[in-house]
């Protein structure tokens, strides 16, 4: 082997080693993140965390029961907006949309997807909080719902498109009207993928904090109904993490773990459902 060839071989070994190091580093960060949160969070979790309200400021103890319920209410509200709009919009794009109008809808969805979540918070503040004169669960849910729309829309369209035309033709040939074909043949055929897409859209907004900062705000007590400000896990984590109280830091870790498990768990669940479905339909 000549010198040049030896050098080239050495360069190859070095560079491939560097790429492997990059991969290991990235993986390492992920594992560290998960592990650290698990460790800190697990040691701070307690029944009280799930069942008690926050203690008065400065006093140790208390929990985040209101934040957990608050997050659930926010997600529920968000789903009420995000799922119908995203789903039906996706149905339109997949089944009827051709040409310029459909392209604009897709572009708008992309724009919506790319808007920083804090800017969405500003918009909902102007649209809902100002006229209502308070912060509310409704406003927070609306903001999250807006963020769900593009994810739900894209998932719906993509999976409906995957359904082969032969299915549609078979139904139409049997005399079923178009809308019945869509509702009773096409959508069921794509249901697995769509369901996981919708699940993922929910997971995506479950962890969002920024849009809640000036829509749902925060609340150290229960928030009955939909027109009061409400606590939520992400906002609590933020508030407690930057505060000076040790006890609050511990609770922030616990909340972080709960949130992480919920979000990552949903993602993994979604993937598992998808993979299971694909193998079955093959």
């Amino acid at each position, binding site marked *: *082997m*000549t010198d*040049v*060839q030896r050098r*080239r*071989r050495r360069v190859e070994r070095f560079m491939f080693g560097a790429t492997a190091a990059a991969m290991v580093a990235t993986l390492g960060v992920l594992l560290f993140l998960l592990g650290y949160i698990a460790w800190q969070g697990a040691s701070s979790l307690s029944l009280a965390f799930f069942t008690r309200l926050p203690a008065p400021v400065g006093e140790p103890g208390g929990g985040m029961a209101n934040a957990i319920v608050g997050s659930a209410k926010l997600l529920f509200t968000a789903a009420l907006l995000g799922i119908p709009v995203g789903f039906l919009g996706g149905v339109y794009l997949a089944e009827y949309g051709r040409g310029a109008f459909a392209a604009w809808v897709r572009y708008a969805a992309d724009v919506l997807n790319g808007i920083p979540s804090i800017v969405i918070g500003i918009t909902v503040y102007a649209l809902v909080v100002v006229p209502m004169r308070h912060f509310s669960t409704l406003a927070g849910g609306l903001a999250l719902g807006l963020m769900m729309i593009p994810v739900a829309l894209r998932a719906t369209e993509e999976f409906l498109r995957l359904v082969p035309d032969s299915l549609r033709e078979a139904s139409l040939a049997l005399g079923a009207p178009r809308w019945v074909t869509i509702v009773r043949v096409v959508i069921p055929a794509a249901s697995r993928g769509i369901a996981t897409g919708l699940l993922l859209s929910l997971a995506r907004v479950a962890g969002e904090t920024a849009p809640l900062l000036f829509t749902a705000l925060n609340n150290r007590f229960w928030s009955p109904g939909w027109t009061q400000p409400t606590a939520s896990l992400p906002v609590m984590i933020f508030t407690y993490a930057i505060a000076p109280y040790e006890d609050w830091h511990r609770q922030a870790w616990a909340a972080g773990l709960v949130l992480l498990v919920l979000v990552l768990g949903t993602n993994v669940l979604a993937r598992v459902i998808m993979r299971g479905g694909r193998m079955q339909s093959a």
Partner: protein
Amino acid sequence: MIVPQAASGTEQDVVEIAVRELTVHYGTTLAIDRVTLDIPRHRVTALIGPSGCGKSTFLRCLNRMNDHIPGVRVTGDVTIDGDPIYGADIDPVALRKRVGMVFQKSNPFPKSIFDNVAFGPRVHGERDPVRLREIVERTLRQAALWEEVEDRLDASALDLSGGQQQRLCIARALAVEPDVVLMDEPASALDPIATAKIEELIHELKSSYTIVIVTHNMQQAARVSDLTAYFYLGRLIEFGPTDRLFTNPEKQETEDYITGRFG
């Protein structure tokens, strides 16, 4: 059964590539079964046979491109001008400088015409722009492409027609100054006129290079090659001067294939 086939155009033919008992497995599948063959220098040797007979696999053994297939096992010996090419201490990268390859579908890089041809020499260490320009012009002339592209060497290679791209790929392969050029069905994706040009090119190149060409087109093999090897199901059935193999084959299987009696 092993029958050493005598390679003969004329008695003075020097053996460029000597293959002995070459056997290739992909996992449990046997792809090449104990092939023994002498490929002479500065001649065109054609490999023919039905789809799946192993001719492309055999070709790819000669520049160790099969190494990249997972689960591959190669036994036997291949020597080029006396040097073995398989072995733990043999560098495939250096081998591929001596043995070049042109593929079935032309695969120019999405770079300029000049950069395509210069890629090989650059990778092997050539930096001098004057020398590179010489190499590019020389090989493009050898590939009968120079006149068509000399004023647009910076244009993208993808702008060329299919036939031109294939000739570019040939020039690119020649630029590293190999001893052997392997061609895997080089004209199968081309129209008759482009094919004719490639065949003419092969004829001119053989005085400087040893050429091994895989083709499924028997007329092409008859037109272009000095020797022909007939493969079937991974085994070498017959090998000899092209004229004789096509007009008076020794084996019945060969005759069946050539006359199209095959199912």
